């Protein structure tokens, strides 16, 4: 699930007039990967071929992450919940639960998988990634550094880069992400696109460098034009620098392909501001229904995004506060705190906002801009 800064999309929409320039960031050499359309067709073929067989959950989660296909998320989680007979299945369930942001249950599965004989390397890596996603990256940086030194490769380096990003070491993170890209030797566009997306999210959401982020999102979309989250993020940056036409066209493609609620909401807000309020209201209402439907099935996975929506065009601060609290209970990241603080203020809870602000620095142990683990969420 793509993550977004608190109220980010709506704030950038409000500041269209002072948009930034489109300076290009550093993008690495081109990658010779299979076209995105072919790769997606082959992914779907493999999902169909495996039916409900082993490892199909991984493919379904990939489909959800890249294409915003939450029916695939439903199916992956349903399958994983029914399979926990050995260490491998428990690890798969942990991955699935982590994708749903059910982090405590995922960690319990990791422990159970260890007891069932799963490889310490696999369980260690999964536990580390969950800790990064829950605001405890500082606890695992040393472990991930040691792992990347011991077994350098895409998996170890991308995990380390994610942890560096989460603790605010953006340059280190970017350098390790580039090294991780260099470790890849596949023609599949998926891992490349994911790393560019992760770098884009880091630069825009955490490090405040939208120009660099835009270059990364663009690269992700060259590799995989259908990447829903990258399209939405890039549309937000386009809005920020005033290219509304490109943003609208991009979001319309995402909405047509996936019905992704965040894309719908941003599109609705754009239409509302650009002379088509009726259409805008309809799209926002549709986004609300879609968010609520997803919340009913995967409450934690969509709590943060839905909270942002209700702080913005969804215009329901009480609902935002409730969802932000739910999200904060699951993971104490800077971003979760920031979202809860904003929701507290929006709903008139100044005392709660003060308490949360005081706790934020203590809980995350870091000063600086609000950060969050780059996680395409259940995506």
């Amino acid at each position, binding site marked *: 699930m793509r993550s977004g800064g608190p109220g980010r999309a709506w704030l950038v929409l409000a500041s269209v007039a002072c948009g930034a320039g489109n300076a290009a960031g550093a993008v690495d050499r081109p990658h010779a990967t299979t076209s995105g*359309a072919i790769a997606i067709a082959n992914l779907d073929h493999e999902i169909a071929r495996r039916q409900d067989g082993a*490892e199909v959950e991984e493919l379904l989660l990939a489909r959800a992450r890249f294409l915003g296909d939450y029916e695939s998320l439903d199916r992956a989680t349903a399958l994983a919940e029914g399979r926990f007979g050995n260490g491998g299945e428990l690890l798969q369930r942990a991955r699935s639960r982590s994708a749903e942001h059910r982090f405590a249950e995922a960690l319990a599965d990791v422990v159970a998988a260890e007891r069932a004989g799963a490889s310490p390397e696999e369980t260690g890596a999964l536990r580390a990634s969950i800790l990064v996603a829950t605001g405890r990256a500082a606890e695992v940086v040393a472990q991930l550094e040691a792992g990347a030194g011991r077994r350098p490769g895409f998996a170890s380096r991308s995990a380390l880069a994610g942890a560096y990003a989460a603790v605010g070491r953006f340059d280190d993170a970017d350098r390790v992400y580039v090294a991780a890209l260099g470790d890849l030797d596949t023609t599949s566009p998926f891992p490349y696109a994911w790393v560019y997306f992760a770098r884009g999210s880091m630069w825009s959401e955490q490090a405040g460098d939208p120009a660099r982020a835009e270059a990364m999102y663009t690269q992700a979309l060259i590799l995989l034009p259908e990447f829903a989250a990258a399209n939405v993020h890039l549309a937000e940056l386009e809005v920020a620098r005033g290219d509304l036409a490109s943003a609208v066209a991009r979001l319309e493609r995402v909405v047509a392909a996936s019905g992704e609620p965040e894309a719908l909401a941003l599109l609705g807000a754009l239409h509302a501001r650009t002379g088509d309020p009726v259409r805008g209201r309809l799209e926002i209402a549709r986004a609300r229904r879609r968010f609520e439907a997803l919340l009913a099935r995967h409450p934690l996975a969509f709590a943060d995004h839905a909270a942002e929506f209700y702080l913005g065009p969804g215009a329901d601060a009480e609902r935002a506060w409730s969802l932000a609290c739910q999200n904060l209970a699951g993971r104490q990241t800077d971003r979760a705190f920031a979202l809860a603080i904003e929701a507290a203020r929006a709903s008139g809870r100044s005392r709660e906002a003060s308490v949360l602000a005081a706790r934020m620095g203590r809980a995350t142990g870091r000063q600086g801009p609000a950060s969050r683990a780059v996680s395409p969420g259940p995506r």
Partner: protein
Amino acid sequence: MNRLRFATRRLVAMAVAGSLGVLAASVTHASDHLDTPTVIADPAADIGDLFAWTSPDGRRLNLVMTIVAHQFSDRLQYVFHVDSGARFRKTTATTSIACRFDAANLAECWAGDADYVRGDASKPAGLEGRNRRLRVFAGLRDDPFFNNVKGVRAGLGVAAAALQGGAVVDAAGCPAFGDATSREVLDRWRHTDGGPATNFLAGWTSAALVVAIDLDVVDTGGKLLAVWASVRKPPADESPVAPRAKTDGIPARPTLGEPIERVGRALTGNGLLGPLAPNDVSGRRKEEYNRAAPSDWPQFSTDIQQTLGLYDGFDGRCGNQWYVDAYPELPTLRYAALANLLADDRLWIDARATACTRYLAVELAEAERPGTAAGDCGGRTPSYDVIDAFRSLLVGGNTTGADDGVEHDDRAHSTVEFPFLAAP
């Protein structure tokens, strides 16, 4: 048979290695990172199977490469290599049939310098080359491979348990399983979940690259043909636009890139490289195998030797595997000759023969009496039960006896009617 990476090979490795207590990670996982082998791998780069046989009129060589994916990659080269010579394992010439695809999956293929074809090759009739020496089909077909994967897994699980229980392994690497264990292993192989054997791949479809080519284009070195297939990354500087036209109107062939995948016989690369090793170790070795130049192929005979010993013990008798007579007095070299043969991972075809009925016919004839014509083209047609023949040879030295209970595919494929594989 890489498509069974998650089936046969992995099941072998996990069943055996798991019970030996050396189960290891393949690649580390992370909850939100797309770093699993399943997701990272490009199925369009993964050859499922290779088939090669002569036409009944003796004029053409038929070639089929199945790909795990639904569509071919627009960034890869798909290549049949046909080596030829007058003597077994002494090939002197090579012809490559190389194809590439664009994003719309339109095909472009070169048969050496003899012929060229370009266009939509997905209709059953395929496309005929400009010089009529070549016909190409490229599209989705029913997958002709058949295999009782679950039964084999169960049988290997029994063997693995016996190993964990202390079965003695001799100096050549062959375990003494005993009659009861052996019977159970072979019985499990013949059943699926305790019932009649079923084909794990029933209903599977794959992208298939099918070629029928005039024999005189590919037998320039002699009538014994050795066929293998590879998938390659084009050189980095290769222009995506069509290369300049030659005077005969055929565009110059693209430079072949580095191989990232190769297949010859069934179950060699996947089945015989390190099934007892941790997955990451065997995976690395398989990568090296896929990328090795032919001159480096012999280095894999040591890996293969180690696995042959395991197979030899499955019937409760060590030393009755195919080819083991080569070094009767030297147990440590018991499997060296066969490993050496299998490391030269090419399908052998006797192009003088017009009947193709027996898998490994050329190799079997050579083992019986070197230099003797097989009287059968050998190779591999879509109807051969290669799994039973190969495993039986490894287990008991005959082409039957270690059957998996599945004797044919669920669909009928042709050996004479292009494009040979049944429609999906």
